[in-house]
């Protein structure tokens, strides 16, 4: 099951050229661009690992694309996203975020049902890949 998150989640994978164009846009807006990765892509997991430091004061996307590439090489079977942070007062938040790498095989999520208080049911989802496996071993290394 192909996991989708963030901006452009309705589109097919972006090519490197397209990623570069998005980064260029973020830089033009004065946003700081970050590269993050995780092997726990649960939609509620907002805190992914940072790949290096947030990149403030950059003018050109080439350096960031290199970081994306380095991160892909180090974590080929992780989810990697590029996010752009707007530090403008009042915003101070991520303005753009999209996935740039994903594991080859994505088993997806199962629906869990928990019976509570008589006939009530609570639903939640659980990742086939994540559950029961430690970090780094979840998507085949």
């Amino acid at each position, binding site marked *: 099951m192909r996991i989708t998150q963030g901006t452009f989640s309705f589109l097919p994978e972006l090519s490197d050229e397209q990623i570069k164009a998005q980064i260029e846009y973020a830089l033009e807006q004065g946003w700081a661009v970050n590269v993050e990765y995780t092997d726990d892509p649960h939609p509620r997991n907002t805190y992914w690992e940072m790949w290096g430091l947030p990149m403030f004061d*950059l003018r050109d996307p080439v350096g960031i694309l290199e970081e994306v590439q380095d991160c892909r090489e180090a974590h080929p079977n992780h989810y990697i996203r590029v996010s752009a942070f707007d530090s403008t007062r009042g915003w101070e938040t991520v303005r753009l975020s999209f996935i740039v790498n994903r594991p080859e095989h994505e088993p997806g999520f199962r629906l869990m049902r928990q019976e509570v208080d008589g006939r009530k049911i609570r639903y939640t989802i659980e990742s086939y890949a994540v559950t029961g496996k430690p970090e780094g071993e979840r998507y085949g290394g």
Partner: protein
Amino acid sequence: MEAERRYSFGGRSGGDDPTEAPEQDATEEQPERVVPDDTPVDIEGAFRDSNVQEVLDKLDRELVGLAPIKTRIKETAALLLVDRVRTGVGLPAAVPSLHMSFTGNPGTGKTTVALRMAEILHRLEYIRKGHLVTVTRDQLVGQYIGHTAPKTKEVLKKAMGGVLFIDEAYYLHRPENERDYGSEAIETILQVMENQRDDIVVILAGYKDRMERFFENNPGMHSRIAHHLDFPDHTAGELLQIAGLMLEEQQYRFSPEAEAAFREYLDLRIERPNFSNARSVRNALDRARLRQANRLFDAGGRGLTRKDLMTIEPEDIRASRVFQDAASGTEETGTDIR
């Protein structure tokens, strides 16, 4: 340079002979046969479209003297422009390496020229952004093992699309300490200089003799730098002209006697230790303005006019310690000369 002679670059008036079309050199490598050799090319038009003249004019206006530097910059602009026109008619144009070294004494305009260079290279589309990132050893070299490469890479990322200006580059190399992390920074920079010419231009700057020693010890760096520009010291006459420009910029001027005093000041100041060319001029003018302000203040508002606020008088110059020391014959080795 061919193009410059024929196409009247730089400050000279345009178009000596606009009818003369540049011939195609028959010995040149032939492109795939699509564009005929007699295709007319319009170098002047390309030059106009690039708006480089504006920056070159600014360079001429704002920087006094420095003739050899200005010539080199114009030559570089001509090369890039011809390359662009060549590409336009299907001729190969190898991306030239434009990493440079700027050598010269303090205050001779290295940083200022680097800024202009970034602007020119941007207008000629050699670099994508045209900003200048100035760093010294501290911003490149780390404190412990494994710290340097990421630190240098951070800086390189910031400079991508623009010009990386490394001031006093020789501090990167500490021959007395073979485990110094500076060499790791050099290594990282070298790689980018070699492999990412389209992404970044590196300019190394510093005093001439120390730079030469640095290059002797780092042949890899030396061989990757195609352009060595040496910034001459300014003459007293040029310094006076620079002073004029600086005053004009701030809406001040010398009275005729003050100008004469400043000329005398310069002659003395040049001989003193720690003389740093145009920067010393700027500092001297700052102090003259300070004295002028105090003089006006002490005069207590007596019939002052707008003109008084703009005029530097000889006493604002002659109060300098340079004159007093010269009179008393003191040999000065101190750091700050007032």
